[in-house]
């Protein structure tokens, strides 16, 4: 019950702060651009677009959300409320994934992509990974510039092998790389059981790290600065 309220609150926050409006505009631009490119190019470009924008934007959304909550000191209230760090993170993860899913499905439908369920799952899992990475980085920083700088290595590690893989530059070991598993799903290919397990373990580890970071951030709020 509390979780539902928390998610509803996060969605309202994201709507009021213009996240939905921004992505409505971007989706229209993306769809227009996709419809303008030749049919033969669309498959890989749409996969790359969906993988690299709606879900991966979770990282930047988290930066913006946590910085806003820090600057407006809302985190002080949340830290002394019955909300647990797990609930706080899960709510952000779910609400941001929802935007990613809406945008990804809209683009995929416009581009005539098949396997929408697998694509949707891939989008949500990618979004969760990047949201958690964004959360881990965001709790440590104080400004948006700092955040953008800190996310560069995560972007290279996250996107690099996946993009290479999509365009045929492949190393056998990279087929088990979480980002590559995700981009495969966004492309509409169902991964094997082992790959799903790897993805789940990876997300669980990131969730644990994010939980520790959030708890540390809550403990640092207010009080003496030494």
């Amino acid at each position, binding site marked *: 019950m*509390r979780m539902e*309220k*928390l998610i509803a*609150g996060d969605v*309202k*926050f994201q709507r*009021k*702060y213009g996240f939905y409006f921004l992505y409505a505009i971007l989706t229209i631009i993306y769809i227009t651009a996709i419809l303008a490119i030749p049919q033969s190019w669309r498959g890989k470009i749409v996969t790359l677009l969906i993988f690299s924008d709606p879900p991966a934007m979770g990282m930047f959304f988290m930066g913006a959300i946590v910085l806003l909550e820090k600057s*407006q*000191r*809302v985190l*002080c*209230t949340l*830290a*002394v*409320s*019955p*909300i*647990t760090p797990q609930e706080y993170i899960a709510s952000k993860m779910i609400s941001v994934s929802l935007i990613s899913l809406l945008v990804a499905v809209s683009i995929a439908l416009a581009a005539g992509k098949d396997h929408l369920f697998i694509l949707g799952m891939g989008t949500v899992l990618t979004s969760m990974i990047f949201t958690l990475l964004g959360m881990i980085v965001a709790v440590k920083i104080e400004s948006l510039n700092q955040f953008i700088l800190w996310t560069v290595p995560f972007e290279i590690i996250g996107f690099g092998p996946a993009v290479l893989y999509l365009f045929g530059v492949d190393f056998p070991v990279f087929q088990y790389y979480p980002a590559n598993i995700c981009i495969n799903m966004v492309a509409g290919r169902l991964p094997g059981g082992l790959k799903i397990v790897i993805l789940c373990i990876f997300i669980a580890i990131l969730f644990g790290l994010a939980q520790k970071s959030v708890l540390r951030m*809550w*403990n640092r*709020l*207010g*009080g*003496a600065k*030494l």
Partner: protein
Amino acid sequence: MITVNNLNYSYTDKPFIRDMSFRVSRGEIFGFLGPSGAGKSTLQKILTGMLPDYQGQVQVHGVECKKHKKDFYENIGVDFEFSTMYEKLTARENLNFFSSLYKKKSKSIEGLLEKMGLAQDADKRVSEYSKGMKARLNFIKALLHDPALLCLDEPTSGLDPTNNRLMKDMILEEKAKGKTILLTTHNMQDATELCDRVAFIVGGQIMALDSPHNLIMSRGARTVTYRWQENGEQTAVCALDEISTDQRLQMLIHDNRLLSIHSSEPTLNDIFMDITGRALV
């Protein structure tokens, strides 16, 4: 309600909170007074379970703060000195959201907004609120889930005299309902008026702990100042407990020549400076 025994806490190698012990009973307003950096906020964070790595015993509602579960906060309301609201949401939206995070049924948001004089502005964004309006809204947020313990940090800061009075009346109303209130303030007048007991905190230590009345009476000699006309206006001061031996005063009273006479006592601020050697800045 609150028991603190031999509390020690440090952010670094140097001790910050040193050997604090005190108890706060149910229905008591307990004030923490001290200059900035004295350890008041740290103490409040320990009491609200946000800093678990302390030494000693700190119990709130019978729960050791370092071992609390999250439902610990169902019975604690914290009013921060600064606004802690989503600025782009309206006051009503903020209150609806924060109250939804508790299991307990929320108090009437409309009623509290009305009481604090914010009903007309309930649908305004918080970013459009003045400092005083934000302070009142923050206070409402702390009350929404009807907590047994209220931690108030400078609740009257930024309020005009009318709203200052309104806020103090609301605090006393909560006390009358049996709520325990921890009040952190620089404002000695508020502390004198509201607190049953106050602790003077300097350098992470409690330097004095008693009721404001006892602190004032124990340290300060009350005096009587009187004025009369004699080659211009004259003024003299004598200790209240020596008033019967002041011959000049006796004579002025006898001759009905006094222009004015009033007694005065030291303020809590004077006592604070006297005990700690520090001003409350």
